[in-house]
């Protein structure tokens, strides 16, 4: 693969460009970068998902008296604003969940120096517990168990072969 890694002795020192590439790879594999990247991607996915979910509100009859009186353009504007708010809140939620999960999994894996399913289980438990900690210890425990099971299942599915 890398011709310079084949022989440890007799390898010339890295050029500037290669050192830069190494630094960039190191940053890309670091925990803060994974935390930020998951947050951003979660935000995007959450926005798309929120857009999708917000369309269900207008699937049934939702017209009120004052809404009928507004013009089409005003109705559309209020509908779009509602969709935007809903999808924004969903995007924030997804970003937080993704960032916390990814950050904790990276930290746990760095600490344990092993790569197996316990990392995703522990990270899922912490994420689930954090998300539900406001509504009491029982719901926090339930959230921990549920999210851990979910993330372990997904990781197992990705790694099976």
């Amino acid at each position, binding site marked *: 693969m890398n011709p310079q890694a084949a*022989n*440890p*002795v*007799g*390898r*010339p*020192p890295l050029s500037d460009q290669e050192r830069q590439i190494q630094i960039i790879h190191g940053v890309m*594999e670091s925990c803060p970068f994974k935390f930020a990247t998951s947050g951003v991607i979660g935000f995007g996915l959450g926005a798309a998902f929120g857009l999708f979910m917000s369309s269900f509100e207008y699937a049934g009859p939702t017209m009120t008296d004052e809404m009928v009186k507004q013009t089409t353009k005003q109705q559309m504007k209020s509908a779009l604003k509602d969709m935007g708010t809903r999808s924004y809140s969903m995007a924030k939620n997804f970003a937080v969940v993704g960032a916390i999960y990814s950050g904790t999994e*990276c930290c746990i*894996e*760095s600490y*344990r*120096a*092993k*790569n197996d399913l316990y*990392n995703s289980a522990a990270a899922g438990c912490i994420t689930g517990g954090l998300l539900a900690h406001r509504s009491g210890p029982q719901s926090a425990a339930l959230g921990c168990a549920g999210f851990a099971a979910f993330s372990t299942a997904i990781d197992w599915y990705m*790694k099976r*072969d």
Partner: protein
Amino acid sequence: MTAEQNLGRAKIHLPDLAIELPSNIMWSGSYSQQYVNPQNLEVAEQELEMFMDLYNRILANCRNKCIPPKYHEPDLSKGEMVCIDRCVAKYMSVQKLLGKKMEENAENLTNIGSTGGGLPSTL
């Protein structure tokens, strides 16, 4: 391949080994006829063998400890990278420590050989 050819081709970078080579050894790829002290050549050859042996041992041991043989992907994961860093650091520090201890007990060890028994005083 003779030792001269080995040293001529490989540009060896041995930062931690205490090896002092005289300036008349050529590091470029040319096979010039300058005089090379054969004793220094032997020392350099031995150091090279030691280094390669150390490298191969570290490679085998850390690979056995850190990388389980179930391969899902060709890249090293974060946990495996951290494990290899720690493994190499520990190996080198253990080697240094043992080297120091061996030096300290060198006289005791040679005394054991000559007098035929008895424990060294520092163990």
